[in-house]
């Protein structure tokens, strides 16, 4: 099986590009459509009845983020435009800019292993990966796709699976560096976007062009 230059997107990358309103840049870098597993974004959990929203940990990760910003806007902890931006995921799906990838049996089995305590210790993790990260790793491994994630634990698992060999991956900082190198934005703009995602809570402490 060989790579066909497709990339599977994890929540961290998708969420922060949406929050800074630069989904256009993400699409230019990754290519249309943006692909993510159903654990990252499930179009069907957008209109669930009230009862089902009581346990947000049962929702897809992007929907959990939407719910979080809905409350943050209500309590005055976040401005409305952040909610509008993260909610854009639904419109992107409707327009075909986001595509949900279903896992096959092999991927499902691998993702389940990565979400188990046994699987975590096999890959020297303290706790298992979450459903979104596990699905991205499984799809990236089985289909030889690139993965776009800023989850260190997910990348650690892929490092071990590839036994030190290189494999295609993207992180927010790498994407911004690539965007500047491909003249999609300037280096200063890359630094500004990175500073903006950090101001929104993104945990990377580096900078694209120090």
């Amino acid at each position: 099986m060989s790579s066909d230059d497709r990339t599977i997107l994890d929540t961290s990358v998708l969420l922060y590009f949406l929050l800074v309103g630069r989904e256009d840049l993400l699409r230019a870098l990754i290519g249309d459509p943006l692909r993510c597993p159903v654990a990252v974004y499930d179009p069907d959990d957008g209109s669930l009845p009230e009862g089902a929203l009581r346990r947000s940990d049962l929702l897809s990760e992007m929907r959990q983020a939407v719910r979080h910003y809905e409350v943050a806007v209500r309590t005055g902890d976040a401005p409305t435009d952040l909610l509008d931006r993260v909610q854009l995921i639904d419109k992107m799906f409707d327009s075909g800019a986001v595509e949900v990838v279903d896992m096959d049996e092999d991927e499902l089995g691998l993702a389940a292993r990565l979400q188990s305590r046994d699987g975590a210790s096999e890959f020297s993790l303290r706790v298992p990966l979450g459903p979104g990260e596990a699905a991205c790793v499984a799809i990236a491994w089985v289909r030889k796709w690139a993965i776009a994630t800023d989850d260190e634990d997910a990348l650690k698992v892929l490092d071990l699976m590839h036994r030190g060999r290189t494999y295609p991956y993207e992180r927010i900082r790498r994407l911004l560096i690539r965007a500047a190198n491909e003249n999609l934005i300037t280096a200063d703009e890359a630094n500004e976007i990175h500073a903006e995602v950090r101001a929104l809570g993104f945990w990377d402490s580096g900078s694209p062009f120090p």
Partner: protein
Amino acid sequence: MPDLHAVLARARERARYSQDDVGAALGVSRAMVSYWEAGSRRPNDRQLAALARLYGIEPIDLLEDRDVDPVGGDLTGMLLRAETGVDPASAPGVQEFVQFLERYAELSRLTDLPIRGLSQSPFVYRSRFTQKDDARRKAEEVRSHLNLGTGPIPDVDTVCEMLGVTVYRAPLGDDLGRAPSGAFLNHPEVGFSILVNLDMTPGRRRFTVAHEIGHALFHSSEDRWVISHGKSPRETFADEFAGEFLMPSESIRRFVEESGMPPRIQDPVDVVHIQRYFRASFPMALVRLRQMNTITAATYRELRDTVRPVALARSLGYAIDPEEVEQDSERWRIRRFPRPFLRMLREAVVQELMSPPTAASFAGLSVPGLVQILGQPLSGVEGEPQELTTEFAEFEETGVV
């Protein structure tokens, strides 16, 4: 791969959920759950992970047909069997509580940070306390033990932290006749733990914390778990204890006297002042005043039926919490967790024992929710008021620092 449908049915039954419960939790019809279990439809990948989480097992247990008991399944079962007549709709909330406690214990082991949980009451206990005077004396004793004096208690969660009691909040239903207000459990690793029904009003939830402290400190040597529901001498004691603990009668009398209020209160403005001083809800203040005979039964009914306490408090210049106007359990998504747990989770991320997304999934939080715990702003740098800089300058330039 074994037949998923049969595994799904068995896992649900072991977790003591009905197909209706599962449908409600996942936002699908009961018929859809039935199709999944009959094998005519298959849950999608997200639903499969959600089912495993709901049942307290791992997705691999479903895929590999492993008959494993749900995390904390025994404790959940014991709690649910502790009281007859409890609303079956409370089961998911009780399950969530027990699963949280198991995760808390796991996090403690992972981080090597101890849970400073109380597992034995420090208070002398010789017989079942049922009398009103017992409750009053014991409330005074607990306040004295914590050096709380006789004044208002600003934050009951801090009291629980001081005592070593873990508080978790989950929805248990809003049917007053059947839904429990809360529960107490002496967890083998976490120690004294309290569950508060998130479906009840903020004032009632605060009362429930104090009520469950009463069970924890004075009934735990006889019962390892209690579901607070219905009427019994034990429940009456816990109610009396909670009232005295949050609003000590002696302290109310002193406040009434020193504020120049009449000994027989009739004016709703006085009740609002008492309520706000003790940080209690208007109904709780009114109930306490009635219990103490400071208001007559007729005044109680009149004030209960005619006063608009939030509007009145606002007109008197008191700050109003948005939840006083509209109950919003969504706001408790993060605050449902006890602060020591959130600190421990934060420590796990800071020490790089787990990545932020893994930590979010571990706790059942969104990525932005986890980020909030890490102390990161949600809304960019423009969120802080300018006055902070001005205030620092005021301190520094006037020589205070």
